[in-house]
């Protein structure tokens, strides 16, 4: 198969009407429709229990769907499971590994499971990239938590998947390693690998993702290009540090919806960055008229985290 021929916007994963009700009767996913495109980094965000892992596990064949279909590169995950699954690598959220095996054996095991002939050169390359090569003969019990996480990544990459799922890859990984991991993810993407990750570090999604999906209570509440999302929902704030702290404002200023912070020392005005009229000139003028002086001002944009929190709260 020629990777270059794949259209940038063709679907690597295509999910329709997917629902999951666990045996307990709990509805973990409710009518999910989602397209993941070839070659993108897609971040799935959502609070604990939102259904992220359930969704990933269904795509990978670990959990059975109650309803709906999933196509991986056009292959149905249930009826053409071999073709679908052989394209996918999964780094699970839980650190589950065969404790008494050696690092190298368990990575080779994974490659075999996915139907590939052994390839020591390639395995060496990924183990080196993940700084595990020196540990290759160690038993897994002797690895630290962060090393185990990297081992799971090595296992997931062992069969050269075209689609990689990272379910909270950075949980328990230190800052430097997290940076390294991001670099690795980018490199994989440059080689045409589609990446879907979940994370609770929103700055990670902000830094890495091309598109972001937000899931809450088993429903996808938003899927958007990251830049557009930031733009669309991005609120800007103007913070004015006052000469003299205040506790109340003149009633004429009520329409600006101002708020105080820092014990009245800072006045905050929130406005929509998309709007033509930001209202700032008026505000400043009115403040002047009422003799409220400020000594400093700065503006800030809301982060993805703020957007996320407000979206999830809303629903």
């Amino acid at each position, binding site marked *: 198969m020629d990777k270059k021929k794949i259209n940038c916007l063709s679907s690597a994963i295509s999910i329709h009407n997917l629902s999951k009700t666990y045996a307990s009767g709990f509805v973990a996913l409710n009518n999910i429709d989602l397209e993941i495109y070839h070659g993108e980094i897609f971040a799935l965000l959502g609070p604990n229990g939102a259904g992220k892992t359930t969704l990933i596990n269904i795509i990978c064949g*670990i959990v059975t769907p109650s309803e709906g279909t999933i196509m991986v590169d056009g292959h149905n995950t249930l009826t053409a499971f071999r073709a679908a699954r052989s394209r996918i690598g999964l780094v699970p959220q839980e650190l589950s590994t065969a404790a008494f095996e050696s690092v190298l054996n368990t990575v080779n095991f994974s490659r075999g*499971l996915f139907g590939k002939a052994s390839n020591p050169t390639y395995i060496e390359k990924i183990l080196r990239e993940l700084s595990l090569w020196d540990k290759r003969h160690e038993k897994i019990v002797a690895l630290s938590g962060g090393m185990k996480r990297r081992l799971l990544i090595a296992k997931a990459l062992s069969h050269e998947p075209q689609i990689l799922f990272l379910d909270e890859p950075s949980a328990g990984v230190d800052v430097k390693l997290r940076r390294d991991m991001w670099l690795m993810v980018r490199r994989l993407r440059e080689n045409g690998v589609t990446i879907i990750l979940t994370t609770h570090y929103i700055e990670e999604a902000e830094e890495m993702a091309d598109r972001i999906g937000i899931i809450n209570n088993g429903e996808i509440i938003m899927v958007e290009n990251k830049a557009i999302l930031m733009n669309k929902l991005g609120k800007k704030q103007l913070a004015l540090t006052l000469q003299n702290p205040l506790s109340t404002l003149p009633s004429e200023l009520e329409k600006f919806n101002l708020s105080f912070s820092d014990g009245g020392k800072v006045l905050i005005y929130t406005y929509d960055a998309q709007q033509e009229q930001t209202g700032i000139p008026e505000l400043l003028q009115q403040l002047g008229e009422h003799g409220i002086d400020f000594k400093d001002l700065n503006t800030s944009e809301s982060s993805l985290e703020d957007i996320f929190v407000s979206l999830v709260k809303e629903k």
Partner: protein
Amino acid sequence: MNFYAIRAIYIFEMSRTWRTLMQSIASPILSTSLYFVVFGAAIGSRMGEIDGISYGAFIIPGLIMLSLLSESISNAAFGIYFPKFSGTLYEVLSAPISSLEIVMGYVGAAASKSIILGLLILMTAQLFVDYEIMHPLWMITFLILTSITFSLFGFIIGLWADDFQKLQIIPLMVVMPLTFLGGAFYSIDMLPEPWQTLTLFNPVVYLISGFRWSFYGIADVNVAISLGMIFGFMLLCLATIQWIFKTGYRLKT
């Protein structure tokens, strides 16, 4: 067919055996040797022959069966239970591999271990008692069929068990008694009625009888029935496994 996957599972399982060599091979051999010493050499020398065979030689097939059954079951059960318990099964479930291939890998490895073990016990027995094997090919056939069948059965127990106790309870509470009462140490026509008739409901009787026939040409029940019983049980196990994978029972949520 995903041969690489079958091989990967098989090698992985076999390497577990070598790693735990003492437990998986040495200890069954040791305990069987103790039986040979006590029943074969010590007590056996005071016992008369059964059907013209010395008591020490008479108990060899039954003792091998005893190890074969319990080791097949526990190896196969543990082999699949442990990844389920530790969470590493996710990888097998997410791999492009069919249930038949999973079974071939796990059950194949468990059965191989049992076959190796059975042959080792057979060689060890030579140290304690004299015996000859009348139908070696049939002996091997029974050995292989029994190992596979009971590894399948163990695999089912491993899939079904959701704690360590369940893992042990069937081998301990069902298989051990059935084997002891299945004619490992006596010929069933030595039993008084109604036990002689009741014993025929014990499936292990057919296994031991058939296996002993391959050694000495004597059997409590017809050999064809013995073979039929093994095949029947094997098919039953295969069907059960097929159903488990199809429904995802205790495997997938």
